[in-house]
């Protein structure tokens, strides 16, 4: 197991390096002067220019430049944002919790509803139920997320007026950011309105979270169903049946834990698409977050924000996909067997 973890760590480092390399090469192709693209300072004074050249080894050869670039970026210096002239790292860390909040809520929605529905679809003998569940999931899988977001906000936000369609909370509430998660911060704040503020934050997250949850939900339903159908045919289920166990016990205790293993694996594979969708959802519902921050950055040609945002988000996603793989292997006794055999 230790060797395996070491190898995964190695993979993470190698990929990060590859990512930095890609960003380094891309940066040199940005249609602006190199010092500007690297630091974000539009009109540097002579001292600043000298400082930048020293920091990024701009007079050295490509290799020296790359090493200097990797050093500054990985030490956390992502430059200044072109538009706001604040450090990019600071903006990134401010935007991240909001995105995590949205992702976590919709992930929970997807799993909470997806797994039972998938099990139901696999157990149902009724053709109509099966077909309609499959039809719904296939539609959910094919729906363009930006259009879904617009349609939902048009219905529930504008025509019915039930739910707010933009922002994370009503601007009237003043919430001190502590953890950056609005749902937690509202509860932590000591203002008199914290319950109503919490309710408001919940209302604000419902539409975006549902929009974002559609894709993982459909994937979870489909994978759970396929895995359950496979597993229910395996000998150990037949053996459990023959031992006289109840169908409920068999499904919950023997089939479902085995079926969740491929679900976990596919969640890791889905992470990239999920992140893309999350960014689009943030833009549509004008929530603060990494997605809307990055998209605003590209509109304003804010080259440091683009570099920093891409680096940060990609590293986080690579980290999580490797983490999910490790979890998958730790949870799955069968793949432990393979690791065990490989060493």
């Amino acid at each position, binding site marked *: 197991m230790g060797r395996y973890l070491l190898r995964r760590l190695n993979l993470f480092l190698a990929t990060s390096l590859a990512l930095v390399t890609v960003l380094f090469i891309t940066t040199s192709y940005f249609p602006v002067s190199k010092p500007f693209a690297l630091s974000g300072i539009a009109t540097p004074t002579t001292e600043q220019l000298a400082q930048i050249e020293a920091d990024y080894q701009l007079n050295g050869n490509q290799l020296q430049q790359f090493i200097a670039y990797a050093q500054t970026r990985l030490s956390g210096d992502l430059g200044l944002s072109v538009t706001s002239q604040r450090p990019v790292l600071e903006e990134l860390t401010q935007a991240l919790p909001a995105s995590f909040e949205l992702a976590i809520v919709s992930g929970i929605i997807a799993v909470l509803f997806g797994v039972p529905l998938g099990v139901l679809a696999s157990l149902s003998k009724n053709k109509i139920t099966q077909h309609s569940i499959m039809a719904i999931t296939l539609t959910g899988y094919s729906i363009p997320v930006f259009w879904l977001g617009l349609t939902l906000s048009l219905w529930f936000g504008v025509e019915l007026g039930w739910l707010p369609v933009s922002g994370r909370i009503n601007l009237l509430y003043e919430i001190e950011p502590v953890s950056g998660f609005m749902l937690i911060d509202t509860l932590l704040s000591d203002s008199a309105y914290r319950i109503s503020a919490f309710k408001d934050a919940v209302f604000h997250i419902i539409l975006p979270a549902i929009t974002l949850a559609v894709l993982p939900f459909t994937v979870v339903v489909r994978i759970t169903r396929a895995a359950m159908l496979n597993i229910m045919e395996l000998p150990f289920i037949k053996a459990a*049946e*023959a031992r006289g*166990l109840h169908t409920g016990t068999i499904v919950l205790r*023997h089939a479902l834990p*085995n079926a969740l293993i491929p679900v976990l694996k596919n969640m890791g594979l889905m992470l990239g698409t999920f992140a893309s969708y999350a960014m689009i959802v943030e833009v549509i519902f004008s929530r603060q977050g990494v997605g809307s921050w990055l998209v605003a950055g590209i509109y304003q040609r804010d080259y440091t924000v683009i570099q920093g945002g891409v680096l940060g988000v990609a590293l986080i996603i690579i980290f999580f996909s490797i983490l999910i793989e490790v979890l998958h292997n730790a949870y*799955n006794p069968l793949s432990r*067997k393979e690791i065990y055999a490989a060493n």
Partner: protein
Amino acid sequence: MPLLDIRNLTIELDTPHGRVKALERVSLMINPGELHGLVGESGSGRTLLARAILGVPGHNWTITADRMMWDGQNLMDMSPKQRRNLMGSEIAVIFQDPMGSLDPAITVGSQLIEAMPQDKTISFWKRNSARKAIAQKWLHKVGIKNTEEVMSSYAWELSAGECQKVMIAMAIANQPRLLIADEPTDSMELSTQAQIFRLLSKLNQLHSVSILLISHELETLSGWCDQLTVLYCGQVMESGPTAEVLEQPYHPYTKALLDNMPDFSSGLAHKSVMQTLPGSSPALQHLPIGCRLGPRCPQAQKRCVSKPSLCHQKDRYFACHFPYNSEPCNDDPTT
């Protein structure tokens, strides 16, 4: 009174080639405390028969029978729920793939504990440790020494023999009256096979569990069983006490099976031809009419296109128009 009495059980399968009689008019009788062997080639419907007794049919099956009695109760009249309860308490089964029959995601011990009957008399805070102790007792009984270790390991960490022993422990933990062993020693080494068989026969003698032992090897079955039933292509060929059947087979198929066993005691001639029946057993969609052995049978004649019914002589049963060493049966309705 027999423990299990099945008369003229027919199982039809709906296949893409139409409806096929996978088992045709099979009769089987198991007395209490008997070790009954069921021998047949793969595809002869042994497992179908086992599953029909257990009541876990496939989705495309149609089961009909004149009689299916379990200890005086009619199995055909029972609801699936009653069948399930019966299965948990009185009939147990072990399958041919012991490793696949254990849940890979849960430890062996917790599966064994789950299979044991709930004892309501023990107060619930002691129940866990008590159940663990009982589970260890059962594992001891099936000949596993390092019980702690086995109980905390996963199925794939054990050998096939150990897995099968655990399966047997699970099966007997409910103290069933009938144990169906469907090829329990498939793909195991000879020494492990002997261990499993010895264990089964010990259970049979000590706990008077009736056992239905299903296998394709006549020579292994002949060493352990009291009664023997020979199945070919879903039809019963012959049935009777093992010693008598081996001594004097009435049916051509049984004789062919016995001839297949090379006799190593009297040195075999170099390059001598091994005895086998011509051809191979037919596929499900190409079953011959009448006696299904017909096309391959050395004794076959015109009459064999009608199915011979099972005839009874003393404690022997056989279905053949032209049996060896015996006058043909008179109660044959087709003659």
